[in-house]
């Protein structure tokens, strides 16, 4: 059974679409990796598989071994000694070389012929695919397996939970992180997701409120473009842990879409830490060099995720 050497399985859920589940899954994976854990990410969003795009490995292909599919590697483990690129020269790391665990991922996105192909499947086919992803991928030995889900509570979720409850042990099932935005229509969908977890016996690790405010880089005024405060109120009402609020950071979007290291206007301080400033314009090559996980440490969201993951780890591995 391919999940037997996975220590902890975490689901990332949301009743609502577009709140940033894939974004949060990616960042949780990168942050866990930066803490030295070996991480796998399974993307079960069959009709909108975004995870390969987030990790910048869209054009990779999945390799097959006699026992099943080999997950596509994002980066190998790095234990603190100097890293070299292919020809043995010290790789340009943008000054950000960090210790990190290995990271690999699996998604339907790798198996599609054309990125723009619509995957128009009815329930039974989706159910079968989810089961196959869980049983036929050779994850090997992992500290954490994160599972990114589509919005809602449909076939993918039901078959996911069913299969996991059968194939994984109770100790392996760490639980679910639920993502929402502050607005009312997100909150109302997320309440359903919480009740879904309760009905199916999935432990809720906490609620993350995403896109909570946009800080204008020009004048620092914070505008609540998607309303305010709903996540925390809901978490209290439902008695689930509230893990934190994340603002909209266009630099993160830029990191994912263009591969450029985040830079912030002079004087930006987040959580007591001065952020990298753009005192001089870096060349394109310098801006995009380095692994995603290393560039991510310059992002303003990283300290927030670091805090949340520390919280999570203390709950999962007390």
């Amino acid at each position, binding site marked *: 059974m391919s999940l037997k050497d996975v220590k902890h399985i975490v689901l990332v859920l949301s*009743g*609502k*679409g*577009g*709140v940033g589940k*894939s974004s949060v899954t990616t960042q949780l994976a990168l942050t866990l990796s930066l803490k030295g854990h070996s991480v796998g990410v399974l993307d079960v969003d069959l*009709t*909108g598989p*975004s995870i390969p*795009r*987030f990790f910048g490995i869209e054009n990779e292909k999945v390799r097959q071994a006699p026992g099943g599919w080999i997950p596509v590697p994002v980066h190998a483990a790095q234990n603190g000694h100097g890293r070299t690129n292919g020809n043995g020269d010290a790789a340009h790391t943008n000054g950000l070389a960090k210790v990190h665990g290995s990271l690999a991922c699996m998604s339907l996105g790798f198996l599609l012929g054309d*990125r*723009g*192909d*619509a*995957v*128009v*499947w*009815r*329930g*039974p086919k*989706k*159910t079968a695919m989810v089961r196959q992803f869980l049983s036929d991928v050779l994850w090997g030995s992992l500290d954490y397996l994160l599972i990114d889900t*589509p*919005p*809602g*509570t*449909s*076939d993918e*979720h*039901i078959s996911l939970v069913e299969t996991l409850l059968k194939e994984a042990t109770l100790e392996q099932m760490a639980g679910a992180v639920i993502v929402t*935005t502050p*607005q*009312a*229509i997100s909150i*109302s*969908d997320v*309440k*359903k*997701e919480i*009740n*879904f977890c309760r*009905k*199916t016996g999935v432990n809720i690790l906490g609620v993350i409120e995403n896109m909570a405010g*946009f800080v*204008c*880089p*020009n*004048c620092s*005024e914070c*505008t*609540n*473009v*998607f*309303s305010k405060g709903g996540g925390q109120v809901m978490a209290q009402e439902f008695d689930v842990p509230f893990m934190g609020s994340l603002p*909209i950071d*266009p630099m993160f*979007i830029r990191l*994912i*879409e263009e591969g450029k290291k985040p830079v912030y206007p002079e004087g930006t301080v987040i959580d007591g830490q001065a952020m990298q400033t753009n005192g001089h314009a870096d060349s394109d090559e310098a801006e995009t060099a380095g692994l995603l996980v290393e560039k991510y440490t310059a992002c303003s969201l990283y300290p927030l995720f670091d805090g949340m993951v520390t919280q999570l780890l203390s709950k999962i591995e007390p």
Partner: protein
Amino acid sequence: MAPPSVLPACFTPRPATETNVLGLPEKRPITNVGKVVAVSSAKGGVGKSTVAVNLALAAARQGITIGILDTDIYGPSIPTLLNLEGMEPDLDPNNRLLPLTAYGVKAMSIGFLIPQDSPVAWRGLMVQKAMNQLLFEVSWPKLDLLILDMPPGTGDVQLTITQSIELAGAVIVSTPQDLALRDAVRGVDLFKKVGVPILGMVQNMSTFTCTNCGHHHDIFGLDGVRKKCDELGINLLGDVPLHARICHDADAGKPTVVADPDGPQAQAFRDLMEAVGETIGLP
């Protein structure tokens, strides 16, 4: 009074003669409804429901008799957006659901039939049945236009709808972000595969203007949808900027077109409705 159950009591299975040789459902018209337009996007959270509701309200202001059908079974947003949360529809003498009314718009959603916090953890077949009921067992008055607020994804709901009724066209909503566009393109692909005309795309959450200093920020990227439209050869029907009030008003159950009818955001939605109306030939 207990809410009407979604299945058996109201559901009348269609007789065998209505399916064609391959066992696929035949397309049927919806009684009393003129044209049907789907507001869709394979991507979640781009603003389909917000755009659909504001479009319907703009249509009402133009004098079009309008209805909106919320086809998102798992996350119905229409009750919240129209301030109809917790309301239950009555049945007409033929046991069909009577739509609720808000701001001059007739509305139906599964959100009216199921307690608000209950998850709808249904597999595909039940979703299909519920969808059929929402499509054919609602007693609409005479409507010029019915707008369908579609759920994200490209699965059972989308297939059932496109196989069961004749759509005048589909409007695809997206934010300028590359990630959203990649899924929106699948939405376009889906409709092309099933032969539904694409009326065009809407660029939502385009530019954010800081209310304090007036600086423009393209938070989700610049003009991504416009460029994609050029690439795919489809119309850009409209552009809606990102403004905190749109969400704030939607949350309060009084969408932009009603809450701030003379503002620039409402104008953007009205322009959008005019463009849609022109494309499908509505007065």
